């Protein structure tokens, strides 16, 4: 009975949620019926927005390569971040796409918050290019003539199999739709002149300024695009339906309204996304306040610059584009010196939630469209998984993870544990490792990658599995390790202490290497050195086991255990080394190929240690 009531309430809630949408659609349908000109304007807006979506979709096809490479190179210096934001937004006509890429890079740790803010500031400047395009080109030329061929070429390419061709198709179709949308809006407003005179609704003075700023905000929130609001304002202004002063206020409102869209998007994002949205909000609100307070000054400045640029006195559409650019540039000039403080403020005010064991820190669903950043984030997540595996194996070996992490001294590594204890490796695995391992695998499986990136993805997937294999071997090793570390037989105890010391040393070196931003030696050299140590300490390969059996220092049963446990230790070491090779350095195809060629196989390492000719050892290892 209770559950039926709950279900009914839930269904009602779900229906109520759709009421505003249904009401809005109904209202629009009525308005279209009452005034066909309104249909023309509304369809213009719809086509324009669809064009923006198509353009965004097209550029996403290139986000796996060119855009990401460009962003990686462009964010070393602040001015480069600003330039990237401005140029990328001008080309893509989508500040939201640039924001999404920036958030992905921030989350993957590929750029700092300061650099990200630089890109967002630049993107704000880039959005002003849309106004120039419409005011300068869209209203002067019959752009619908270009729209049709663009749409035709675009749609043909969209059906192409190749990803870049498809992307180009979406871009062409997107530009075509943008042009067509502008054309419909322009036509709609021209026809509107025969009907109602909207100019009668213009409000002068401060009240008008505030009212139209609010209107601009609302329009941007509804259309989810400041660009669309600006285009609508410019076309209405050009047709004489909006007063110039009110149009200025609408453009200010559009700038504030766009942050609402960003804030809504940031609700589901991680801490980096929220901080970036915070920076966006601070920038746009401050800029809007400056524009509102000094509106008269800006108007005078627009008149002055218009004179220099040769903009005709009556060309209010271009003047509006100039005003939009000027107040955004002013915002950038004033806010750039404050980026450092803004970063401090945002980092202090928006703290990340304490890390939840099972939750990932670097990877999230928003990155799925950015394979480069997503793979780098996965690599970092794997390093996080490695630290957990480190902690688990250290505990299995009866070391204190914290002390081992600080590159445990030889004395600490060699000293027998004060009291030998067994940890619940299964429980630790289930709580700390398995959930994160699963999430990484799930994330990697959903990444749409091809070619070289697919090779990296496989490497990361294998590395994740190697970490889990190392944990499972450590669990098996623990059984006898706990038993024989306290053994009365000094020979056997020493062998297990040696096994423990070697693994502890390896863990400590790898952990140190993973955390070292500027390592002294090349990774391959360090791994080869560690590999040499592993080969030398293998009791089966170095003949130590035979010696112990011959001298009857251990029983046959103990020899079997030692042999098995030595194999577990060997496998743990090899898996950890292989994981380090795949994850310790950011992916570079050249590096991967070189490392594969430089890697010494066990036979080569053994031969080198023994001072023999490698070929002779390989021959000896061959069957028959």
């Amino acid at each position, binding site marked *: 009975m209770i559950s039926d009531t709950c279900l009914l309430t839930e269904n009602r809630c779900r229906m109520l949620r759709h009421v505003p949408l249904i009401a809005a659609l109904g209202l629009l349908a009525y308005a279209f019926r009452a005034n066909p000109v309104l249909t023309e304007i509304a369809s213009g807006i719809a086509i324009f927005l669809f064009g923006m979506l198509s353009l965004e979709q097209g550029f996403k096809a290139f986000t796996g390569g060119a855009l990401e490479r460009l962003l990686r190179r462009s964010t070393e210096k602040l001015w480069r971040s600003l330039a990237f934001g401005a140029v990328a937004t001008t080309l893509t006509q989508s500040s939201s796409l640039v924001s999404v890429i920036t958030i992905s890079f921030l989350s993957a740790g590929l750029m700092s918050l300061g650099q990200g803010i630089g890109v967002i500031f630049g993107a704000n400047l880039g959005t002003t290019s849309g106004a120039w395009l419409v005011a300068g080109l869209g209203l002067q030329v019959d752009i619908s003539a270009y729209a049709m061929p663009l749409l035709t070429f675009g749609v043909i390419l969209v059906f192409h199999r190749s990803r870049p061709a498809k992307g180009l198709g979406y871009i062409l179709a997107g530009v075509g739709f943008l042009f067509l949308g502008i054309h419909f809006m322009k036509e709609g407003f021209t026809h509107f002149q025969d009907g109602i005179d909207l100019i009668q609704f213009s409000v002068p003075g401060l009240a008008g300024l505030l009212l139209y700023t609010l209107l601009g905000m609302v329009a941007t929130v509804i259309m989810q695009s400041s660009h669309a609001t600006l285009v609508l304002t410019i076309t209405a202004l050009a047709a004489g339906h909006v007063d110039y002063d009110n149009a200025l206020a609408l453009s200010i409102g559009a700038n504030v309204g766009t942050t609402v869209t960003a804030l809504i998007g940031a609700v589901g994002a991680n801490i980096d996304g929220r901080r970036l949205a915070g920076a966006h909000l601070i920038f746009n609100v401050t800029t809007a306040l400056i524009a509102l307070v000094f509106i008269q000054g800006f108007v005078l400045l627009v008149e002055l610059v218009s004179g220099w640029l040769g903009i005709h006195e009556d060309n209010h559409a271009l003047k509006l584009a100039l005003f939009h650019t000027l107040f955004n540039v002013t915002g950038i000039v004033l806010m750039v010196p404050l980026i450092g403080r803004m970063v401090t403020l945002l980092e202090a005010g928006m703290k990340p939630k304490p890390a939840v064991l099972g939750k990932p820190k670097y990877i999230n669903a928003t990155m799925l469209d950015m394979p480069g950043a997503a793979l780098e984030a996965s690599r970092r997540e794997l390093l996080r998984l490695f630290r957990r595996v480190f902690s688990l194996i250290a505990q299995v070996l009866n070391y204190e993870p914290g002390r081992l992490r600080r590159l445990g001294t030889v004395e600490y590594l060699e000293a027998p544990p004060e009291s030998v204890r067994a940890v619940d490796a299964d429980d630790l695995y289930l709580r700390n490792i398995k959930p994160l391992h699963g999430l990484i695998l799930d994330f990697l499986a959903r990444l749409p990658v091809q070619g070289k990136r697919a090779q990296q993805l496989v490497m990361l997937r294998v590395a994740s599995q190697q970490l889990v294999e190392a944990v499972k071997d450590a669990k098996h090793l623990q059984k006898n390790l706990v038993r024989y570390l306290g053994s009365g037989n000094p020979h056997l105890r020493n062998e297990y202490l040696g096994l423990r010391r070697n693994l502890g040393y390896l863990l400590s070196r790898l952990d140190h290497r993973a955390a070292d931003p500027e390592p002294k*030696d*090349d990774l*391959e*050299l360090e791994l*080869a*050195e560690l*590999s*040499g*140590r592993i080969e*030398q300490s293998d009791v089966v390969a170095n003949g130590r086991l035979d010696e112990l059996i011959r001298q009857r220092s251990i029983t046959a049963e103990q020899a079997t255990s030692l042999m098995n446990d030595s194999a577990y230790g060997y496998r743990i070491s090899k898996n950890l080394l292989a994981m380090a090779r795949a994850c310790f350095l950011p992916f570079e195809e*050249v*590096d991967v*190929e*070189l490392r594969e*060629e*430089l890697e*010494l196989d066990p036979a*080569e*390492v053994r*031969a*080198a*240690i023994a*001072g023999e000719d*490698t070929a002779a050892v390989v021959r000896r290892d061959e069957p028959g």
Partner: protein
Amino acid sequence: MRRDRLLHGFRKLLSSDLRYQLEKRDKLRRILAGMRKKQQELERTLAGEPDREVRNELRRQLRVVKEQRRKGLDVLNELRGGRKE
């Protein structure tokens, strides 16, 4: 000479494979230089080390570094050979 250099530059510009091979060779050279430095460092330490056990450990490390360098030099020679073909 100047013409050769120009031709080489032009080929480099056109061939992504050649560009890739050159990048790989430069990286390998840097890695090998690091290895040589490490080898010299180990040899210096070994010369001044009186403890037998530590000397043995250093010798082992030295052998691995030498083997790693040898392999690296082989790859470098292969790359050079590949370019001449």
